[in-house]
């Protein structure tokens, strides 16, 4: 985004202020990465070595053994699976539902639109703990025999998907309705005059034009839902049903018996988010600022 035309760059003479700025930025950036690099170093050293020489010492041996051990001992593959079962439907459903609301609010000027948007956005800003007590009780009350493994909404992937969708659709509806409002009104008018149905309008005309915003939101939602800790800690009781981020808390006591394994396990958990971030950085950042810019 902020890259300058190449020809311009080369001719700028080296100024002391710039050198100072770069020095400052390099030092600060390294300091910022230090905790993560420290974790990486700990994860790559054998426990026997660090317990003997201490953690602040020159490493004799760097291996990925801790990573493979952490991965296998805790059956991490299983937890990546439980995460996908929650995250994929949650992201898709959130985008579908919030884009429908946004379509309604931005294209059809019915009296309720502002109020509706207000309800959605305010709901998204609430701290999760405000609603958790009744939600927890509600999930225990709802019987779903045969639909979920637990027979209830509590302790099920379905329950997690629903609360993610309900909670996150607020933010997405807000962002998407702003985006849709910027599309020319003539577009849908013309189609309506031609006799297109509302659904076609939404699915074939408006939605394809929202691809950039949807891509940004999908990236953002994937990372948020993957990183969720609180909902799963409270609404899932069986350790094995937890998505990876929440499962980490249990695993760290059970399987990750030394700090090196904990570091390896924590970093393994972070890898998918880091991949998504590095590949889709632009989408992620634009998604985050889409909502904020409109303040």
């Amino acid at each position, binding site marked *: 985004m*902020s890259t300058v035309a190449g020809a311009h760059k080369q001719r700028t003479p080296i100024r002391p202020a710039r050198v100072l*700025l*770069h020095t400052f*930025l390099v030092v*600060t*950036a390294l300091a*910022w990465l230090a*905790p*993560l690099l420290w*974790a990486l170093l700990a994860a790559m050293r054998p426990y026997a070595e660090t317990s003997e020489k201490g*953690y*602040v010492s020159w490493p004799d041996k760097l291996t990925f053994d801790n990573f493979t051990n952490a991965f296998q001992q805790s059956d991490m593959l299983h937890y990546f699976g439980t995460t996908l079962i929650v995250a994929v439907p949650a992201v898709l459903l959130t985008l579908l539902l*919030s884009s429908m*609301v946004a379509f*309604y609010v931005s294209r059809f*000027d019915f*009296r*309720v639109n*502002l109020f509706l948007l*207000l*309800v*959605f*956005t*305010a*709901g998204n*800003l609430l*701290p999760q*703990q*405000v*609603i958790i*007590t009744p*939600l927890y*009780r*509600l999930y225990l009350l709802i019987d779903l025999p045969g639909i979920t493994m637990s027979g209830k909404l509590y302790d099920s992937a379905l329950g997690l998907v*629903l*609360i993610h969708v*309900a*909670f996150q*659709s607020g933010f997405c509806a807000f962002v998407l309705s702003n985006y849709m409002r910027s599309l020319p*009104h003539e577009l849908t*008018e*013309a189609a*309506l*005059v031609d006799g297109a*149905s*509302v659904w076609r309008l939404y699915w074939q005309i408006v939605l394809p034009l929202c691809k950039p915003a949807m891509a940004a939101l999908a990236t953002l939602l994937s990372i948020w839902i993957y*990183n969720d800790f609180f909902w799963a800690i*409270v609404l899932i009781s069986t350790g094995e049903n937890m998505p990876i*981020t929440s499962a980490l*808390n249990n695993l*760290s006591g059970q399987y990750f018996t030394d700090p090196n394994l904990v570091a390896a396990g*924590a970093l393994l958990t*972070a890898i998918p*988010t*880091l991949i998504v971030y590095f590949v889709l950085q632009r989408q992620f*950042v634009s998604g985050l600022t889409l909502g*904020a*810019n*409109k*303040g």
Partner: protein
Amino acid sequence: MTATPAKVPETADEPAPGPAPTSTPAKVPHGHKRLLTRRDRLTLGLMAGVPTILHVALVWLTALASIALAFTTWNGIGFDSIQWVGLQNFRELFTSNPQFWPAVEHNVVWFVVLILLPTPFGLFLAVQLDKRIRFSRVYQTAFFLPVVVSMAVIGFVWQLVYNPDTGLINSLIGANKPGHYIDWIGDPDLNLWAILVAASWRHAGYMMILYLAGLKGVDPALREASALDGAGEWQTFKNVVFPTLRPTNTVVLVVTIIEALRAFDLVFVFNKGAQGTELLSILVTNNIIGESSRIGYGSAIAVVLLVISLAVIIPYLIATFRKERRA
């Protein structure tokens, strides 16, 4: 839901501006409705209704239920055992809970620290990175990395830094021998500040990204004019750039308050909200999954959290939407 559209009065009577022929409804957004069939209305009703019902049922009705339950005691077994107790939960909370006022104080400290240290630092970084410099992207990636990683992972990573026996800090300063321990995680005078370092580490990157987006919207001509007038870098920032960042500052303020109220994961992973790090969110959760399951009492704490949140959210949203309507 499906009934409302029919009752909306027609507003197509305002004359279309310009020479455009009045027969096309293109300029009048309300003209839509006349073209809708019954099926379209049903579709629209479902499109708006289904998400709204899900959201309202799971978010707003539960928030209302929190308020209602706050005035009761309930052991969770059967609805018959719900008993109305009036303000008793709140009275107990405000006068005899040893954790409540510390928790409020910690939430306030959390906000004050975030707004005073990492927020201005994030702004500072954004201003530096906004100066057409090389490798700006690389620096941004480094500063923003903590925001992408989950709070839970951040908690584990910082435990490796703070662990009294094996952690980086104590190993470096030689405080990891018995008798010299500095217990960053357990000591109630230290642990909040230790966690706040981790929280600030993450918050600065977040604020940097928000400010970078805000700075992109500052008209370069303004800056040039200020520079031509002989203003220095700091003066230009103070008198020209910062005032135009006002909308961003509002967002930053709201985001920071919400983050301070939501703070949970990091503390829970770090030390489960032990003495010194109590937060309102932790107290609510302890009344659900902790040893003491007191539904009414936990709800009373949630109501305190709700009232503070709404006091921030509602004025912000009203201002935002009012501006949008004018635009």
